């Protein structure tokens, strides 16, 4: 029998963890001589106070949905994919190649092509660590870390070499106009009033939402998802049932890599419309926090990604208007990972004791 009711596990614990992270963050802000309350107001205003802010929040959230889902699906197979960063970088390479070298007639085709390219490239980058885990038992955490560094080098190699556009920067040329994805500004332009003016959120957000739904169905409704979850809960049982560990590790990591790679349609094709060196900017790592907070459930991931989107946009505004450096966001992110991931038991154990004694009290009341 479970010690705690389900709602406590999925809602109460994450909320308390986030509160703890928030309190510590506030202390950090206080310590550097700023007012946490003012900072929060600025963040809320900057991220949610205008369609412009929302446009950025949703743009960041889109990135985090992809990387969060990537980490989540791997978690379901009890694999810890820290390689989202590298996979998203290489996904960007795929998007760039697809957009630059194929004359697309219309953005819809370009989107489809880029999505496939991004997924394939991302998956390919996850394939080697996956293979090594499946066949050689090399820990996927270590190999994906290594592959993040190697990915950065590979990207660099192309951006100062074959794909470099003339000019100072190591970046590709601007993608052709036909690959331009409709931004929220394009989509929600009603003549007089333009919503989301200047914000980078684009149609990819809906692709991300679709990915959430698709992944939810995959995990909970399909045979493959059933097998992935089985394997994640118990490798020995999965073997007994005739579920091939090799297959599940490969498939889960390939899906994971593909999702991380698909982030590139948002930031590379949707926003920058060219590939630059540090296009991913840590989103791969934020995916870890997002998946942890979202309890690896696609809808949890969505909510957590929105929260982090808010943090990122709010944090950027904070950096623009106050002297609080943007690194504060990294601190907050670290605290969220720490409390929701590593220090989970710190919150859980006292709560479990609480629920246990509540139950005992209730039972005693009944029997006496």
């Amino acid at each position: 029998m479970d010690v705690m009711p389900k709602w406590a596990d999925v809602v109460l614990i994450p909320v308390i963890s986030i509160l703890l992270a928030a309190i510590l963050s506030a202390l950090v802000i206080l310590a550097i001589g700023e007012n946490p309350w003012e900072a929060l107001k600025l963040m809320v205003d900057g991220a949610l106070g205008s369609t412009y802010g929302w446009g950025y929040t949703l743009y960041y959230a889109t990135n985090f949905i992809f990387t969060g889902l990537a980490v989540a699906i791997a978690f379901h197979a009890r694999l810890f994919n820290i390689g989202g960063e590298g996979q998203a970088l290489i996904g960007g390479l795929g998007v760039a190649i697809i957009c630059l070298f194929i004359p697309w007639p219309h953005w819809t085709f370009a989107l489809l092509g880029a999505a496939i390219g991004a997924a394939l490239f991302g998956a390919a980058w996850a394939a080697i660590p996956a293979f090594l885990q499946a066949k050689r038992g090399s820990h996927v955490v270590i190999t994906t870390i290594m592959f993040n560094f190697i990915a950065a080098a590979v990207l660099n190699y192309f951006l100062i070499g074959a794909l470099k556009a003339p000019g100072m920067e190591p970046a590709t040329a601007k993608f052709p106009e036909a690959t331009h994805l409709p931004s929220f500004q394009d989509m929600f332009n009603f003549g007089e009033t333009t919503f989301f003016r200047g914000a980078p959120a684009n149609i990819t957000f809906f692709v991300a939402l679709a990915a959430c739904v698709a992944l939810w169905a995959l995990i909970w409704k399909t045979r493959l998802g059933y097998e992935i979850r089985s394997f994640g809960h118990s490798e020995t049982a999965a073997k007994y049932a005739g579920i091939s560990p090799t297959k599940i590790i490969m498939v889960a990591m390939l899906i994971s890599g593909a999702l991380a790679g698909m982030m590139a349609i948002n930031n590379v094709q949707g926003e920058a419309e060219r590939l630059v060196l540090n296009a991913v900017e840590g989103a791969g790592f934020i995916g870890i926090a997002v998946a942890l907070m979202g309890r690896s459930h696609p809808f949890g991931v969505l909510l957590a990604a929105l929260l982090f989107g808010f943090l990122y946009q709010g944090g950027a505004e904070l950096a623009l208007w106050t002297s609080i450096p943007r690194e504060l966001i990294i601190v907050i992110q670290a605290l969220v990972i720490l409390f929701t991931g590593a220090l989970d038991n710190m919150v859980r154990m006292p709560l479990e004791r609480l629920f246990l004694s509540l139950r005992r009290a209730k039972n005693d009341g009944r029997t006496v």
Partner: protein
Amino acid sequence: MSDVAPAIELKGISKAFGPVQANKDISIRVMPGTIHGIIGENGAGKSTLMSILYGFYKADAGEIFISGRKTAIPDSQAAIAAGIGMVFQHFKLVENFTVLENVILGAEDSGLLRPSLSRARRELKNLAEEYELNVDPDALIEEVGVGMQQRVEILKALYRKADILILDEPTGVLTPAEADHLFRILENLKREGKTIILITHKLREIMEITDTVSVMRRGEMTATVKTSETSPPELAELMVGRKVLLRVDKVPAQIGRKILEVKDLNVTDDKGVHRLKGVSFDVHAGEILGIAGVAGNGQSELLEVLGGYERATGLVKINGEEIDLTGAKSDGQSRRARGISHVPEDRQREGLIMDFHAWENTAFGYHHDAEYQRSKLFMNNAAIRKDTEEKMARFDVRPPDPTLEAKSFSGGNQQKIVLAREIEQNPDLLLIGQPTRGVDIGAIEFIHQQIVALRDQGKAILLVSVELEEILSLSDRIAVMFDGKIMGERMPDKTDEKELGLLMAGMTTEPRGLLHEAVEAQLAHAGGDAGKEV
């Protein structure tokens, strides 16, 4: 007698693991220089109680008195200081350390290792002579057999000058001969004035060696009696709480055609150890073939090969058709497609996903079945749930709620969920390992009836069990495994536990009496290397 303080006295010990009350207000007295047995069903709380005495767990309530003095045992350090040593059910050894290093770990003389090691080497030699506890001090633990590992555990305790020795199910992994050897050691220790607590499931051992015995049931201590004043049936009743009927009613087998044919099966594991060595046998329709043997002699590998998740060489035919033993088609799925069902030995690690709902577990392994699919892509969860409800009803699973997670069922009911899933597939061949491990008597009866009923439908059944009684009462034919080989086949009505026990120790049984003695002598001489892996 009365003015001698008990070596150990526990008063009112209680311990809960989360919602599970493992020990409830337990009190017990053990007199010095005696062997005190503790019996009880799986999960009764025996190991928990002893771990509390050894300071491994902390009790929620209760007091401990050692030689009449109240002693706080917050950790194993304190237990060792109080002269207590414990050999756990699962050994606590560092696999890639040598015997010597394991012995001195935690009992080193000084900051530097060298002096401790040389003292331990001398000490070990003395102990070996004194108690027939021969070990190779420089062997790596991972390279020696369980028998030797157990001796290392005992030596660890003696090296720490333990006066009180707790042994938790020490014979579960030993052959009868090794067990006899162990008991001789224990007798020696007792003669030296040491106090011994022995946990076991085997009533025979209790009757043979203990002076007093305590019985535990569901976390409570139900009785403590003098061994000489009790009998196995009485103990069994105390254990379960009601009269026990152990015999299975069954009609003679109607042997049909050959369903399973196994020829020259060989398995080498990833460490390069030869686990199965040319195993051959047949199972026919309408027959239960029982495989007896001490755990770890290749039975698990045999089930795994037939179940499709261990690679092997050799020949296996089911219904006359050869099955793939190495290729891509060698997995649980293809075995099930061939009409093989499998109730695995360890339901919690293999047979069930403990975090899945009961209904999800019902599809486990059969999640490709057409009836469970909604479309090419999606599973039909509603159909699975409905099917589960029916199966739970037929197998009397309590509570009959498909949406509960597997881990919230008790052991017996978990086993019924697995059985329902596998038996209801109507297989040609049922592989079944340790069907009643950790299951109470009531459920054992039910499960045995189901197995026999399946046999009577003309199915072939391969039964693996370490419980000789179970093997003897269920099987129509018995094969004994030792060290990856089949030592011989016997008919249940033409053999007995003694003969099977010798086979299980790797002895052929022809000139019986003589050999028995020869074994004992050899074991005594070599320090009993029988468990050593080859």
